[in-house]
């Protein structure tokens, strides 16, 4: 008897919590509003199913509780009912899957005008590389890594000389410009995650992964690591700054290229 009330309260409490609690996703700052929309659709469908099933259960538990002289019905099967329920479930599932797959298709189709940004993860810091004036990133490989060249940019690749290297500092992105994040790790698996962008992807030593998005809101956002990468995982933080074109360009001018960063060491070596 009490359990029927509790079951109903579980439903009511969950719904109230969902709508009234202060804990909800952070406002979006990228084009992936579609993902949020799909989550909302999913919340509605699953929420209705949860409420319907548990409330029905509460009713059964109340209505068919044992009383003296009661006897249960004997009904082994009801083929029609079972098929209708299965078909209904299929429709609900399709209503979530279809928009999900459409949005996934967009998520994995990088627009041709996207600029490229390389993110390099290592225990426990972020580094970035932007293509320089030639618009292309030079080759890079862990085999090239030295103390002076921590990202392993191939010094023999001419495309690499003008690459902009950012270490120990924030990444800046231009508002409204699609970007393709090329993700690289040099020690263990990391994951470049900015909650406001709604996107993340693991970075795996030995390969290059990617995702794309368009920043749609200016501001400074937290960068987190979302894949366990050892003791310092929790503290592998950074920031990404999204700003309009003029400010972005001003920032870009101040950054050093790979050649500039290598320069001083070479001159020192000659002396």
């Amino acid at each position, binding site marked *: 008897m009490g*359990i029927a009330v509790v079951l109903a309260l579980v439903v009511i409490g969950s719904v109230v919590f969902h709508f009234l*609690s202060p*804990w*909800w996703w952070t406002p979006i700052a990228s084009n992936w509003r579609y*993902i949020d929309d799909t989550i909302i659709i*999913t919340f509605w469908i699953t929420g209705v199913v*949860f409420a319907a*099933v*548990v409330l029905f259960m509460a009713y*059964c*538990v109340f209505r068919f*509780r*044992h009383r003296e002289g009661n*006897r*249960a019905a*004997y009904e*082994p*099967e009801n083929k029609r009912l*079972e098929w209708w329920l*299965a078909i209904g*479930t299929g429709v609900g*599932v399709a209503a*979530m899957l279809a928009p*999900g*797959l459409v949005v*996934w*298709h967009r998520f994995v189709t990088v627009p041709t005008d996207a600029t490229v940004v390389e993110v390099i993860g*290592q225990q426990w810091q972020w580094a970035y590389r932007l293509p320089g004036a030639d618009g292309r990133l030079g080759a890079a490989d*862990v*085999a090239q*890594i030295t103390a002076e060249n921590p990202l*392993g940019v191939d010094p023999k690749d001419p495309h690499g000389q003008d690459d902009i290297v950012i270490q120990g500092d924030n990444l800046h992105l231009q508002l409204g410009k699609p970007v393709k994040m090329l993700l690289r790790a*040099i*020690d*263990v*698996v990391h*994951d470049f995650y900015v*909650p*406001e962008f*709604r996107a*993340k*992807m*693991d970075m*795996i030593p030995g*390969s290059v*992964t990617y995702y794309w998005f368009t920043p749609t809101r200016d501001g*400074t*956002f*937290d960068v*987190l690591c*979302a894949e*366990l*990468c*050892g*003791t*310092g*995982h*929790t*503290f592998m*933080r950074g920031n990404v700054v999204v700003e309009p074109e003029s400010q972005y360009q001003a920032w870009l001018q101040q950054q050093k290229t790979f050649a500039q960063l290598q320069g001083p060491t070479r001159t020192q070596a000659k002396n």
Partner: protein
Amino acid sequence: MVDVMHGVPESRPADESDDVELYHPHSWITKYVFSQDAKIIAIQYSTVALAIGLVALVLSWLMRLQLGFPGVFSFIDPDRYYQFITMHGMIMVVYLLTALFLGGFGNYLIPLMLGARDMVFPYVNMLSFWIYFLAVLVLLTGFFLPGGPTGAGWTLYPPQAILANTPGQQWGIVVMLVSLILFIIGFTMGGLNYVVTVLQGRAKGMTLMRMPLTIWGIFTATVMALLAFPALFVGAVMMLLDRLIGTSFFMPAIVAMGERLAHKGGSPILFQHLFWFFGHPEVYIVALPAFGIVSDLISTHARKNIFGYRMMVWALVAIGALSFVVWAHHMYVSGMHPAFGFFFATTTLIIAIPTAIKVYNWVLTLWQGDIHFTVPMLFALGFIVTFLNGGLTGLFLGNVVVDVPLSDTMFVVAHFHMVMGVAPILVIFGAIYHWYPKVTGRMLDDRLGKLHFWVTFLGAYLIFFPMHYIGLMGVPRRYHEIGAMSFVPPSAATLNEFITVVALIVGAAQLAFVFNLIWSLKQGRPAGGNPWRATTLEWQTPQTPPAHGNWGKTLPVVYRWAYDYSVPGAAEDFLPQNQPPDPRTA
């Protein structure tokens, strides 16, 4: 329909049926320690699993203390935190749930529910337990070796699992892998036994389609485990070689902390595929026995046949089969080829259909039932709620693009605790309250049982339901503390404190359960042979607890399905499976 429920087996007197020759113990040691009796082995498996489960429970308190009150318990530094989550996760999934459902319930119930005297290979069965026990001991040595147990996360992803910046890199990871290898060897011995016994050891008249759903669940899960564990086995062996003799199965060229390692050419993502080819079926390996058992609990305590028995069997088999083609839904953001996303999202969401059918049928079994609110029934009801909740959030995570923001956040932690943590555990509790009278001859205390249920069910819901929203905000899992995150409001810390307090209360309630288990052994109310007035064979044994050989002189003969509750016209509201049809009505 008729073939499932009633009908006389090709009539052969019971005493003429082929009986197996039983092994007979001669000393105390062979009777109670190195026993070959499945019932003793079941109790051994269950005791060890519950004991190691308590370790995992204590670890969860420590983790929760850190998350709820960061900085207060300074001995829980990041290294220890990662060691705790790793050991907690692995123990709960493998050494508690898998061992308890298959080694514990499987051993006890398969022979008894099928009308057999014992497992088909009792000696191998005994070995299975002792190897499992050894695996547990090896696992525990991790706590005492230099460097402590591994903190690589229960997923053990290389390269970090075997590199220096992960705690337990010296010995912890080695004993973890060795222990898993032993566990799999031990399980394989037991598993082959369960499968062969189900296929070959059934009593006369016990057709496959008359087996109780408990057996269907355990049987399907065992077949799956036999197919899934080998993937983990090879993964563990290869990682062990990478760690110990410097091979590069999973290790590409790496520069770690400024140092170039000798490895080259391996693939970290290959390990992820092997791990999840095991890991996803593993989720169902602990879920399917729970599905089966809960079906029988609901049916028995609602005095009504399980609704849609055949659909239930096919749903179990379909889920078991489909669960081998969905593993990469754990790898949507692993960087695998994006095209996989379409395939794995589709297969994953298709599984929702047979799973939903099971939920509907449990609820429809309650419809027009005669529901007794016994402790097992309460746990079964709690299971439906938490399993439904966790199953529905699975539709978020399975739908590839929705998983992108949610994966690796606390949303995932909340989801899997609901669906494969709390839900199966509730069934385990319900099942223990249900079968304890058969195992010991005494009832567990009812009032303590109800207290245990209410605190555990409501507490677990209060822990894990709000946790989804912490993840929705974007807080990653496996974080030692939230720390300063600009997008997280300060109130989240209050929520975390709340969750921790509830977790401690839920933990304390488990101690009441342990007390009940021990106290009732001597003080419990005598149960009699069939206290729940149930139909299945284990309740019809000549002695309670069942003696060696289970059945006395003659094996039972089965005349009907397992769900003849409240049959119209019958005098009692249940007809045992071995009760011959009434000559007047048949």
